[in-house]
């Protein structure tokens, strides 16, 4: 009985191993066309940025029409986040905006395209998204009024708080398990 159980187990284990070796074979291969339709992320080095370009003037037009109602006429915020200002405030009374806080300009493009305008995300064209990005950077004094953003220029924009982040990789607080007459 014991030997038969062992043999049966062995057969079952072999069958499982053979099944795994073949892979699950579940799902279907993604086509290039499928990937292109969903692959909207922009990496900090600019990878993923599409063809096209946009300037500050067009960005202002789009912003006034589609963004200002929530973010304020000049990006001052309320009801939604402020987008402009706060330069140099992080050590004192922090105001975190694109200009004072965001480390990468590419993130502005990525976020505006995927999530904005709030009521109609992924509706802006590449040119429009570049333009809004250019305008927001200009409102923060990071690029000039004549700036044009495209796949080449946007990753090169130096954000003021680019060096303002660190990774701790562990805990930064400590306590001890005192149980009697603790301070």
């Amino acid at each position, binding site marked *: 009985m014991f030997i038969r159980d062992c043999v049966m187990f062995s057969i079952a284990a072999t069958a499982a191993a053979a099944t795994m070796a073949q892979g699950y074979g579940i799902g279907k291969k993604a086509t290039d066309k499928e990937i292109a339709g969903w692959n909207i992320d922009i990496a900090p080095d600019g990878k993923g940025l599409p063809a096209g370009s946009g300037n500050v003037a067009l960005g202002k037009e789009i912003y006034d029409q589609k963004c200002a109602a929530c973010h304020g006429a000049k990006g001052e915020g309320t009801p939604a986040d402020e987008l402009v200002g706060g330069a140099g405030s992080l050590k004192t009374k922090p105001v975190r905006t694109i200009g004072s*806080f965001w480390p*990468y300009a590419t993130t502005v493009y990525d976020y505006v395209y995927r999530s904005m305008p709030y009521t109609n995300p992924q509706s802006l064209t590449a040119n429009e998204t570049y333009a809004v990005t250019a305008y927001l950077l200009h409102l923060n004094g990071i690029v000039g009024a004549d700036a044009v953003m495209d796949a080449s220029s946007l990753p090169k924009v130096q954000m003021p708080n680019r060096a303002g982040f660190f990774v701790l990789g562990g805990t930064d607080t400590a306590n001890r398990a005192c149980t009697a007459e603790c301070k």
Partner: protein
Amino acid sequence: MSEPFASTRRKFLARTGALGITAGTASPPLAQTAQPPNVPEWMRAPGEPVLWRKYGLPSEFEQNVVRRFNPTRRMKVPGEGPSYTPLQDLHGTITPSGLVFERHHSGIPNIDPAQHRLMVHGLVKQPMVFSIEDLARFPSVSRIYFLECSGNTNTEYRAPVAKSVQESHGLFSNCEWTGVMLSTILEQVGLQPDAHWILAEGADAAAMTRSVPIAKCLDDAMLVYTQNGEALRPEQGYPLRLLLPGWEGNMSIKWLRRIKVASEPFMTREETSKYTDLMPDGRSRQFSFVMEAKSVITFPSAGHKLKERGFYEISGLAWSGSGRISRVHVSIDGGRNWREAQIQEPILSRAAVRFSLPWRWEGGEAILQSRVIDETGYVQPTRQQIISVRGTGPWFYHNNAIQSWKVSPSGEITNVHT
């Protein structure tokens, strides 16, 4: 013939309000007709029929046990913001699916599971698309894990403003999750050698994205389609969410539609301008993923009232994103002396435990605190210890400070700092 049950029940409800230990004011006496020696009305006629409700609901007398907004938090636009789990009304460790806290960034999408797809691409050997049916065919695992928003307790670092443990700690829930290990899927598509991060993307209108290190993906990360035995609720990511045990809740991307494998993090808005911890020197801690050990007393807590002297069981929840809980201590004198609480089994990694301590209230003032120690030896810190390192914000994630509840001689419980 007695009157219909529903009508009786409505009158009963109108007289008594919701039952339970939640009310801060004394409950009116129960209807005398229901108490001994009288026979209650609900014994004198058959009740509601079988399948009265095809999907069960709590008793009408529990309608006070609901998720709520936090009145101290401004809602920016509709569909954006959190709701809080009523921890003061719950027992045990499992959070009922309908009471699990919410945090949405652009509303709750209504997703047809037959149309939903997960795409896995980037630095993989074979980019793939999976349907929900596909994912359910893979070997499944069921595990209990907590989920905590890293903004939980963020109203409390300067002043004790929360009026209840729901407001102070209610961005916390604990559920059984079922799904396929992410490692199983990544093995199937095959990782390229320089695969160090993934981008996880939701199918909500925010297309929410976070970067996750590959080590976590190959360790205990899950793609879950089930919560507490049934399909995920829409608010929790139906039909598919990423679950990263013990890590800040925002990373457990709901409505998951895409995983892109890459060599570097993507520096999304959510991991740069949000979910980073601004320090007093003006620099910000980034990728602070782990929700460190934390505990809170849920009974008695702010808003409860002790109506008479005598025995009470102090009870609460403890958890750690670093592993298992080792011990929980409870103080009734504001942290001067501590006693070891009893921890109820099972003690699971990155899951909530229920702790308790028997207590006799003699009518005096008391300040109740709990303090957890996890298996790494980490001891839950005080608020002062956290502030000494991180300052007071104004933005503050990862507040896992010891919480204080003050019991007044009248039995009122309030939220205080010591």
